[in-house]
């Protein structure tokens, strides 16, 4: 560590104004503050010093995502070998999944960070750490078979049009990773839904060659419900029925990181303990979704309305969205009451879109993006209401 510090100090003059590599000053600064806590502090005025900077909170979110990522890799291999009818053992399954998922992560980070570095250099600003989380989220919320150039395009679109044009990290209105997914969803719908994309059946770097067996169907449980005729009946890729426990553990087809509710739960605990995600938002998303499902259960007109509340929140990306996306501190409301309203409506819209619109089997993405747009409005009215109630209280007291 000392060695690295000395090396950085040694090359630092080259990056300062007048130095040889002045053009890469922001890159150097970003790298330095990524490796070491910066020692510059404010000298004037009153400040609260806190070690919890953006870098710290971003790193915690990335760590919270790691269980989902590792399980997603294993599940990718597991689904693949299930579909070709082989059982090579857990490690080879993981290796297959690792090699399949890794290119998605590399492309997402390379494109996103490339744009961030370029913009920071161009504007002469410091590099923000905001993309560390988005870059990890993007590979986790897309189907495994998404072509890499599409990931690159969607990431570039999301970073430029959802983040940089609004002023960079902390100023974006919508969740950047979800914008990337929404771009893919509307631009290349055949790659983002249906039976062909959620299970990789081809080989990866020569590993896992084989013929897909006859009984195979790559539909996700959520997709099966959307197309159900009589009553929702969920099966795995070989047609075996699934119960709650399977949905919870997550050995089911789906986007890379969303399947295991156990791993999402581990991440959620970490986020809540460190105080990065707000429990009010998280809980109210689940409550909103379950209440809406109960309401739809009573109406009971289509097979999709018959799913019970527990199943509804275990399916698809609901839990992942509730834990990692809806709680994004930048794009959710700041006020306490606003968080309840925001979360409840996200859950409600997610279920409504899922159940009432067969064209969109997964509603979580659209629900969160939709409510992101309203977060400032919710805050505004919560604050207004608070001001009004205080004025009223003052009037009452002054009369006494």
């Amino acid at each position, binding site marked *: 560590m000392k060695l690295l510090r000395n090396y950085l100090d040694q090359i630092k003059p080259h990056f300062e104004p007048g130095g040889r590599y002045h053009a890469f000053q922001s890159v150097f600064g970003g790298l330095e503050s990524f490796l070491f806590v910066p020692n510059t502090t404010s000298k004037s005025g009153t400040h609260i010093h806190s070690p919890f900077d953006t870098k710290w909170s971003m790193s915690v979110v990335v760590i919270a995502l790691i269980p989902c990522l590792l399980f997603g890799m294993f599940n990718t291999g597991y689904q693949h070998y299930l579909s070709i009818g082989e059982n090579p053992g857990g490690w080879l399954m993981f290796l297959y999944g690792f090699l399949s998922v890794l290119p998605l992560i590399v492309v997402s980070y390379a494109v996103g960070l490339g744009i961030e570095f370029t913009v920071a250099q161009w504007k002469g600003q410091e590099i923000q750490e905001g993309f560390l989380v988005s870059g990890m989220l993007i590979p986790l919320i897309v189907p495994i078979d998404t*072509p890499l*150039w599409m990931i690159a395009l969607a990431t570039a679109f999301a970073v430029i049009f959802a983040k940089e044009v609004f002023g960079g990290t902390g100023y974006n209105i919508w969740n950047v990773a979800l914008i990337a997914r929404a*771009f893919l969803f*509307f*631009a*290349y*719908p*055949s*790659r983002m839904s249906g039976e062909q994309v959620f299970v990789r059946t081809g080989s990866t770097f020569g590993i896992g060659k084989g013929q897909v067996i006859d009984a195979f169907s790559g539909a996700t449980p959520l997709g099966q419900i959307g197309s159900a005729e009589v009553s929702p009946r969920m099966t795995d890729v070989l047609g075996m029925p699934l119960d709650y426990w399977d949905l919870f553990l997550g050995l089911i087809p789906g986007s890379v990181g969303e399947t295991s509710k156990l791993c999402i739960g581990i991440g959620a605990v970490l986020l809540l303990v460190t105080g990065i995600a707000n429990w009010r938002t998280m809980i109210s998303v689940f409550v909103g979704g379950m209440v809406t499902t109960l309401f739809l259960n009573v109406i009971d007109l289509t097979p999709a309305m018959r799913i019970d509340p527990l199943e509804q929140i275990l399916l698809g990306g609901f839990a992942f969205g509730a834990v990692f996306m809806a709680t994004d501190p930048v794009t959710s409301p700041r006020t306490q009451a606003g968080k309840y309203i925001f979360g409840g409506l996200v859950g409600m819209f997610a279920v409504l879109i899922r159940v009432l619109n067969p064209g969109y089997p997964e509603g979580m993405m659209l629900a969160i993006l939709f409510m992101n747009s309203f977060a400032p409005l919710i805050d505004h009215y919560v604050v207004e209401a608070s001001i009004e109630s205080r004025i009223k209280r003052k009037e009452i007291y002054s009369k006494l």
Partner: protein
Amino acid sequence: MKEVFINPLNRNNPVTVQMLGICSALAVTSKLEPSVVMALSVTVVVAFSNVIISLLRKTIPNRIRIIVQLVVVAALVTVVNEVLKAFAYEVSKQLSVFIGLIITNCIVMGRLEAFALANKPWPAFLDGVGNGLGYGIILIIVGFFRELLGSGTLFGFRVIPDKLYEWGYENNGLMILPPMALIVVACIIWIQKSKNLNS
């Protein structure tokens, strides 16, 4: 005199600077052909309504000028609509109500109010042509990118080579949807503004 014609093409473009006529720019530009037809139709309507109003400008009573303008514009739009139905039936079906809605295009009324009522016929004509073309250029640029990236065609002919599709390229479905038209217009504004600031 030259300014009257040149300004609306860039510095005072009706779409990208004055933000007028955005709705039709979103609605008709998913293909290049309707964009070109729309651009021409609007140019014709703006130019000739400008000339007519400019000729009548001294006889129109101030209080009822809006209704007179509307009658002139509506008459011209009807003529354009009938001509299109007669000679370009397919395109006129694609454009459907949007030809009729040229009447409500803010650019037309805006030019009549702001320019034709106070100027002679020839400058008014140039102003109309300039504004129509300024609007048309933006429409054609947006239509070009939306058709090229969204459908892989231009004027209905396939221009993206089959080889690219074999390598895994796919048409971008989002380009066909109206939101992307807004983003393309935004990009044009971005480029135009940064260029104009520098010069």
